[in-house]
């Protein structure tokens, strides 16, 4: 087990980064050069099931998606906070469990509010 936990552990990730980057860059470039190019005006229009496209796709969409994104940020932070506890589960013992569950209960209060306000109702 070479669990030395130094920044050196990340060197292979950098390697894979370079290999994958090289592969993606080369193939993207090559396929750009390889294929035939017969461009017509209609072909380069954006696709709309065969009819002429109306306007473009820079459209506003439902605010629910933003709500999902905001709630995700908040929940994500809460989940991340629990990781150090999970790693130290044994050392922290019962006090740790009580601490984290009081944390989770506050999260559940928010979650209950979210359900009660029907913030994530997609049916209507």
């Amino acid at each position, binding site marked *: *087990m070479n*669990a030395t*936990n130094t920044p050196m*552990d*990340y*060197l*292979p*990730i950098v*390697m*894979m980064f370079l*290999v*994958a*980057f090289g*592969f*993606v*860059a080369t*193939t*993207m470039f*090559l*396929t*750009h050069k*390889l*294929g035939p*190019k*017969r461009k017509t*005006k209609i*072909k*380069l*229009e*954006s*696709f*709309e099931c065969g009819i002429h*496209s109306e306007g473009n*796709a820079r*459209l506003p*969409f439902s605010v629910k*998606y933003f709500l*999902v*994104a905001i709630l*995700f940020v908040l*929940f*994500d932070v809460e*989940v*991340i906070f*629990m*990781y150090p506890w*999970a*790693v130290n*589960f*044994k*050392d922290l*013992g019962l006090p740790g*469990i009580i601490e984290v*569950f009081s944390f*989770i209960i506050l999260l*559940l209060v928010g*979650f209950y509010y979210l359900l009660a306000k029907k913030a*994530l*109702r*997609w049916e209507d």
Partner: protein
Amino acid sequence: MTVFLIYKAILCVLIFAVSLGVAAYATWWERKFAALLQDRKGPNRAGPLGLFQPLADGGKMFMKEEIIPNVSNKFLFILGPSLFLFLSFLTGVLIPWGKDFTYDGHALALQLTDINVGLLYILGVTSIAVYGIIIGGWASNNKYSLLGAVRASSQMISYEIAMGISIIALVITAGGTLSFREILDTQDAGLANICYQPLGFLIFFICALAETNRAPFDLAECETELVGGYHTEYSAFKLGAFMFGEYINMFVSSAIMAGLYFGGYNFPFAKEFYHMIGLEDGSAWISLIGAGVYLIKTFIFISVFMWIRWTLPRFRYDQLMNLGWRVLIPLSLLNLAITVLVEIFIRGTIQL
């Protein structure tokens, strides 16, 4: 040090090539499997059993005309699929394919790297994988692509929370480590984690389906509503990059599940078996057999992914979001609570 670096470089290229090969042949297997389920033959023209079909498909994807719509944002249009494919390779680095072996006095691991925060790294790369889809879908400047991209990204972020919580429960079971390798080693001595975390595994599995945008969660490319979803405008290798990325993601997430919950390269009575056929610790054969076992488990998971795809109908979007937020998150918190209780009262990790 030099040996270490050269070895890692070779392993890196090897894992890269294997991911590519598995992804290519997963497309073949997907079609064969679908054919099996639907009582057809599937691809059978190119080579024996249609085995050269992926090569032909790959060649075709390279040679096709690439269309970049006039109204699109050119740079981002190319960046989207590139990023998606690129990130799919980065998740695979952490998977330990086998035990360490000794070569010329050096202990070498059949794993690219084992970082201290491995599981969080996986969560991190998954959370960034959203970018490829959002950027690609938005840059196409097509209404279907935009809807597909927005759907895909909010689906992926919604399921990430439940996934994160189920991983926390797993970390507690595994004795407080985020390192992939150590989690596998705890399963070497005892039972596989699936025995302690059946509910956690179910949640993780559902989330993995949703994160890889596989059926029944493939609303992002739901052809009955959105033509092709976020890759409607893509053609040639850029479409191929999205597909390849999806299959590599499927391969890696299958490997992650097989490792975290099913013991990876460990199998029952492994020690006795190795002893019986006379292999010593540190032999390269043990690593190879382990890697074979791991690949078989991964393959089974890939097949289950496909089985589900050809069996279950697609969710409706409200059902999908309800499942993610109202069912899986409370369920994963419940699983966490159960795990803690089991640790205290049954396994006795903590003395009251």
